[in-house]
């Protein structure tokens, strides 16, 4: 039984339809990557799953609860967390306050979760009282992920976690994601670094023009000639 | 009844007076439509341009007071010029004020223009209220000349003036309609829909906004001039924000912001509603509350605007779609 099930999602901005019926599922503890060219609707899919956009068609269920059209602040209560691609931290708040906001709904578990987050991202502990605006890009990405982990989610949605990061940080971020996943937290990530993403994920979806194009085990996708040529920038 | 009796009957006189003022408000509404309807600029200082137009026209067309009158009327100057010169001067001075207010604000967020226009309108009113030497302070100016006054017997003069006002309104409306349908007007609409996209197409957004601000202000100035010649007397209290600014916004939104025919209709319809509420408050508000009676009408007007914004933001006629908007809503 899958944890997240999105079926035939139709969504977009105003009159512009971006997704024309996309389906995907994520199992418990699984790591799934969504790849595809720019403008194929990857971010739109994430926003729609998380209730920031209301789909005009299709259904999203999480742990068999229908969360289609639910506002974001209710979706987080279900055990789903989301790290957007850009603007994913509160820049004018301190690191510690960012984590507190992540645990806004559960102040009772804040202390425990914050310790866990600092354990996962030791760099942040030293800078807990610094404003996020004074942090480096890589550190900000850690804050963003730490904030999303505060409510003990069962599934973490990551929208391009390595976008805009220097190459040295990209491997580190993937290692952190793998570490999070190893704690039993399922991960659904959208990535530009398609090859790296598939190498870390168990399964992958290739979107193109707002539709599912390829679906399968990561290894199968990496081995697929057409996927490699069109979306991975080279031969398998 | 003879023609003469009909023309001079009270009801008809009332109707003519009603149409004159409604037409003048239609001019203000047309000016505001250039600002907000076409370009998306928030001008909360219509009263300021109204006042500038009225005072400019009065000072340009009035002679300096002489004899007995000079003892209790002060004015900075009195040029004794013809009506048309006054109208043109009113438009020009309003336009200049618009340039001055536009330069510091039009590059910034839309709310800044709203605040600054309130400021200019209030400052203009304060200056006319306090500076006795300029235009007789709070007592205001009387005896503003009326164009073509000797053409017909005094009792029929209002018909002449109605004719003048309607001609001006028609000319302004046709010109504005042409401009807004021109490539220039399409740029304004594009700016209103999405400034960033308009700038990305290489348009100098600031210059276009400034031109729109000036054009609308000039139309308001003309309206102010026509008001002064109709009333014959003006004082700073005429240019209070509710009557000078807010009512014009209600007319604009009621008729359909962005639609030339709509906003003219809005001015006439709302002026009729407004006259109706006069009768209603006369009938229902006890005389003891007389000083508060106008505020019942204001409250009604404010409620109407909120209801329009919420339930019919496109107004009675809605907006004519003659350009494809850049961003679907």
């Amino acid at each position, binding site marked *: 039984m899958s944890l997240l099930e999105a079926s035939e999602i139709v969504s977009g901005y105003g009159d512009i339809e971006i997704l024309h019926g996309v389906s995907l599922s994520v199992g418990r503890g699984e790591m799934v990557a969504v790849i595809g060219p720019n403008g194929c609707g990857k971010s739109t899919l994430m926003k729609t799953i998380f209730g920031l956009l209301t789909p005009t068609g299709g259904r999203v269920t999480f742990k068999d609860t229908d969360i289609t059209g639910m506002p974001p602040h209710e979706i*987080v209560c279900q055990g789903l967390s989301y790290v957007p691609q850009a603007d994913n931290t*509160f820049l004018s708040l301190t690191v510690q*306050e960012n984590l507190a906001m992540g645990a806004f709904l559960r102040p009772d578990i804040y202390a425990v979760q914050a310790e866990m987050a600092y354990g996962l991202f030791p760099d942040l502990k030293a800078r807990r009282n610094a404003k996020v605006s004074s942090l480096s890009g890589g550190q900000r990405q850690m804050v963003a992920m730490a904030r999303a982990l505060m409510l003990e989610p069962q599934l973490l949605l990551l929208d391009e976690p390595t976008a805009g990061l220097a190459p040295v940080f990209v491997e580190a971020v993937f290692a952190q994601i793998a570490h999070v996943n190893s704690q039993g937290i399922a991960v659904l990530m959208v990535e530009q670094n398609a090859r790296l993403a598939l190498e870390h994920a168990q399964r992958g979806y290739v979107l193109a023009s707002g539709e599912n194009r390829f679906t399968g085990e990561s290894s199968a996708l990496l081995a697929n000639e057409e996927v490699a040529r069109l979306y991975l920038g080279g031969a398998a | 009844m003879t023609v003469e009796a009909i023309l001079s009957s009270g009801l008809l006189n009332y109707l003519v007076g009603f149409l004159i003022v409604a037409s003048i408000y239609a001019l203000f509404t047309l000016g505001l439509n250039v600002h907000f309807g076409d370009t998306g600029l928030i001008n909360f200082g219509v009263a300021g341009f109204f006042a500038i137009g009225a005072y400019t026209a009065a000072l340009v067309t009035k002679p300096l007071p002489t004899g007995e009158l000079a003892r209790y009327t002060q004015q900075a100057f009195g040029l004794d010029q013809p009506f048309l010169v006054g109208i043109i001067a009113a438009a020009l001075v309003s336009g200049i004020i618009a340039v001055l207010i536009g330069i510091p604000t039009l590059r910034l967020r839309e709310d*800044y223009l709203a*605040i600054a226009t309130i400021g*200019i309108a209030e*400052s203009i009113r304060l200056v006319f209220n306090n500076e006795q030497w300029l235009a007789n302070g709070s007592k205001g100016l009387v005896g503003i000349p009326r164009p073509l006054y000797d053409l017909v017997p005094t009792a029929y003069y209002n018909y002449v003036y109605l004719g003048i006002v309607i001609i001006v309104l028609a000319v302004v409306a046709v010109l504005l309609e042409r401009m807004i349908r021109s490539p220039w007007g399409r740029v304004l609409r594009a700016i209103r829909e999405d400034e960033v996209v308009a700038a990305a197409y290489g348009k100098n957004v600031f210059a276009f906004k400034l031109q729109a601000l000036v054009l609308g202000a000039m139309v308001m100035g003309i309206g102010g001039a026509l008001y002064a010649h109709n009333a014959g007397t003006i004082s700073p209290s005429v240019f209070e924000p509710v009557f000078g600014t807010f009512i014009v916004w209600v007319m604009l939104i009621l008729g359909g912001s962005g639609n030339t025919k709509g906003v003219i209709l809005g001015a006439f319809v709302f002026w009729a509603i407004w006259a109706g509420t006069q009768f209603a408050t006369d009938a229902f508000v006890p005389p003891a509350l007389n000083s508060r009676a106008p*505020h019942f009408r*204001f409250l009604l007007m404010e*409620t109407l605007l909120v209801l329009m914004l919420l339930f019919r933001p496109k107004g009675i006629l809605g907006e004519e779609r003659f350009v494809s908007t850049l961003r679907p809503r």
Partner: protein
Amino acid sequence: MIALVVDGIILGSILSLGAVSLTLVYGIVRFANFAHGDLMAVGAYVAFFLVNTVFATLDIPIATFGPLSFGLPMLLALPLAMLMTAVVAVVVDRLVFRPMRARRYATVMFVIGSLAVAFAIRALVFIIWGPEFHFYTQALRPALKLPFDVRVKPDQIFILLACLAMVAGLYLFLQRSKIGQALRATADNPDLARISGINTEHMMIWTWAIGAALAATAGILLGIDSQIRPEMGWNLLLPLFAAAILGGIGNPYGALVGGMVIGIVQQVSTAFLLPTYKPAVAFVILILVLLIRPRGLFGSEQRGF
């Protein structure tokens, strides 16, 4: 001149409180609320109603506190008026602005709506209390003589302290309390706040309630300092916006300084200009700021407090 500066500091502290609350609301609802001055008037008039109508008929001891011109009734009226004004603001939000948010209206529509609300409040004040000036008390209290020939009324010292206490209280609330932090988070990044589980509609209610309560206090203090009148809200609009923009709009700590500057300049200007020109003086400062430093003295290049 020193006397004018002292008066300016008192007026400035009231404007600071008004501008801080204006900019707090702006930071979260993201539009310039033209009804803010009229919320101050609501507070002032509700307090007037409580002190001079309700409490006057009850047997509340009119015991005054030392040299202050007001007593227990006013101290009781203050929190009640804050509460009432907060209720008014929240109800207005529910009736006018929340439906607009739900329909994803452009900012301009909110701004126009707020102007309608401002005039509607003023019309109601006129209808209920009439066009006359009102004073909270007719009692005159001797001014304290300070060095340099400066005279300060005891009330004015109370006003200054009350304003400082309110702003300090707001600071602590925003920094320390959970709701305060969530308000800052919402001002900083509303989408991320929602993703984090913050119900931003609740934050709107908190914002309006706090903003209106502080505005009410400022209105009452202004009433204690001078008098209350239906147009007070409208006349305050330019100084309030000038103060908020001078401090960098959306930046409450900047608004504090902005309010002080505007208050002092307004008072000192009365040495050269008619006092009725005070709103115009605020307007001139506003234009100068927009020309020279449109982001304000302290800038607000990013969102959030």
